[in-house]
């Protein structure tokens, strides 16, 4: 039998700036939309609140809460390794192999040749989007931040903040 010291089992939440700390009841790492839906159903059935985060890039306690459910869209080792070396590690964004929540799909053009809609997975990070954008040499966001440690969901909030 493997004996697990209690402190090794704890998965505390800490934001990017290391100013907010929580201890969620459960930390889920889904890779599909259906997974997220089922987590929400589990939360409803068991009277939990659900909080979500990518790179946890906010100074406010918006991303997590003690004894509630926390969904992390970035794996736990990555979000606790700062700065993230991803921008230095060679690699490509491969839309054929990414999980459900990391997909990037171009949709119809609203202004031909200039603007179009794009469906971006909530777990797509800034670096992953940059790699996709550079590989395609065609489309990018009209506003962005020069920051690796942020996911698209948080990035949208950043734009609003600006």
């Amino acid at each position, binding site marked *: *039998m*493997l004996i*697990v010291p209690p402190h090794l089992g*704890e*998965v505390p939440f800490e934001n990017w700036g290391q100013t907010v700390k929580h201890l*969620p009841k*459960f*930390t889920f790492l889904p890779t599909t939309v259906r997974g997220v839906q*089922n987590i929400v159903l*589990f939360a409803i059935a068991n009277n939990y609140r659900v909080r979500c985060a990518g790179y946890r890039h906010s100074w406010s306690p918006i991303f997590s809460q003690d004894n509630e459910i926390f969904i992390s869209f970035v794996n736990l080792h990555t979000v606790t390794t700062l700065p993230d070396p991803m921008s230095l590690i060679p690699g490509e964004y491969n839309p054929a192999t990414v999980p459900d929540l990391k997909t990037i799909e171009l949709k119809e053009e609203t202004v031909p040749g200039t603007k179009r809609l794009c469906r971006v997975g909530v777990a797509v990070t800034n670096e992953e989007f940059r790699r996709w954008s550079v590989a395609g040499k065609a489309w990018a966001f009209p506003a962005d931040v020069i920051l690796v440690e942020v996911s698209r969901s948080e990035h949208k909030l950043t734009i609003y903040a600006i």
Partner: protein
Amino acid sequence: MGSPSQSSLRSELLERTHILKEILSHVEEYSNEFDKIDYPSLKNEVLKPVLAEVFDPETQIRGFLKTFRHTLVYKAAFSKIDNQQLREQIDAFIDGKGAKDVTREAGFHVASHKSPPVHHHFSLLSELKKLVLSAIELKEAVKDVLHPKHKHVRDLPVVFEDVSDTRVVEVSADTIRSSLAIANTLLVL
């Protein structure tokens, strides 16, 4: 109405081309205070290619390294690299040798060097390597290990993330991690 100083901050000026041109025009005004910076490299190899939209990562990185090559911070960091081969590779790259040529024979082994920040940053690679190796070894053994029939998994919620209810969402609890529960279950099996 806005004053002249306010009008100089018009939003249409807060865009890349204008900002880069301003930097190009004024950056050397700092040369008295920061006299170790290689301003021609900064302007010609970093800024101007971006303006001309001829961005090449290798040129940019080489330009950045040349820009700061003679600063105390760069020299201090460079001296902490305890591998002569890597230092020579970096110098050769800065002097114009292509990245592929520099790494062709000896490779590029940053993760093996012990500079604390670099070692930590590249720990992700080590973790990924461990993860892949573990996954290969355990692939057959853990096919159904997360099924609630195993008593060590019962304390963790089982939430499926596919239509056929075969893949379980990875989950950690405040007292038990699922990965450790897997290890427990395997030992019991």
